[in-house]
């Protein structure tokens, strides 16, 4: 089971920014918007929010850019191997 309770504390609300006001969409809502799976009303509500919330609008713009870039360039294979090796140890049985 998980080890190392020191890091990873202060988990943001459902993966959203910890500083985000309660009214901002959480990570799941942002992901649904980015994947275009929201129904029309939910999407309209999100777009109104994005039109009026600079922080979330910036988040979405940056996330779109990151999603576009992922998988397009070479990543540091040795770093990823080391990361994976370390992360696997979080669960030890």
């Amino acid at each position, binding site marked *: 089971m*998980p080890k*190392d*309770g020191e*890091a*990873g*504390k*202060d*988990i*943001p609300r*459902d*993966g*959203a*920014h*910890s*500083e*985000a*006001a309660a*009214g*901002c*969409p959480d*990570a*799941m*809502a942002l*992901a*649904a918007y*980015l*994947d275009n*799976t929201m129904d*029309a*009303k939910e999407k309209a*509500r*999100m777009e*109104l*929010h*994005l*039109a*009026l*919330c*600079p*922080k*979330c*609008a*910036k988040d979405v713009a*940056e*996330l779109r*850019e*990151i*999603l576009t*870039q*992922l*998988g397009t360039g070479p990543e*540091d294979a040795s770093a*990823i191997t*080391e*990361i994976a090796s370390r*992360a*696997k140890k*979080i*669960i030890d*049985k």
Partner: protein
Amino acid sequence: MNSLRANAADLDLGRVISGEKAAWDQFVENFAGLLYGVVTRTLRAHAATHSTEDAKDVVQDVFLRLVKDDFRLLRTYDPQRASIATWLTVVARSATIDLLRRPESRRDTVELDDTLSAGCDVFFGGRLDLPPGILSERQAQILRMLFDEDMDVTEVAGALRVQAQTVRSLKHQAILKLREHFGVSGGV
């Protein structure tokens, strides 16, 4: 992103969340590269300087966040709403920015600007809290019908006995005014 979607197809999140070691290892194998890519791009955008070691530490923190408190964060993922790759991208970027906000990291950040520091005045859920004196009564009424009462443009037009295009136009004008009021620029 195609390889990421293929990775997601192999994923059995139920086994991961149940704490099965082999499933966790597979999850890590599938997404370590994605998380590293997201973290390095976010650090590049928001930190004046960063090293590969910084990025590795942040990715490890993201994995820890996912499993902490019996996978509390990972359990919030809903496969019906978005791909795991997109959701992890949102989570990893947010985690990176959160870590940059910690006092020991702040001196190295270049951005964390007013936009990121600002709280949010506009609710995504709940009822609209429109600032007074910005919109006409009609514009405010239309936004409330659209967003508080979940009516669509046709329903609003019917209720107000105006053309749908009039509703769209008033909504557009209202949003422009609110954007100006909140200091939001650029398209969404």
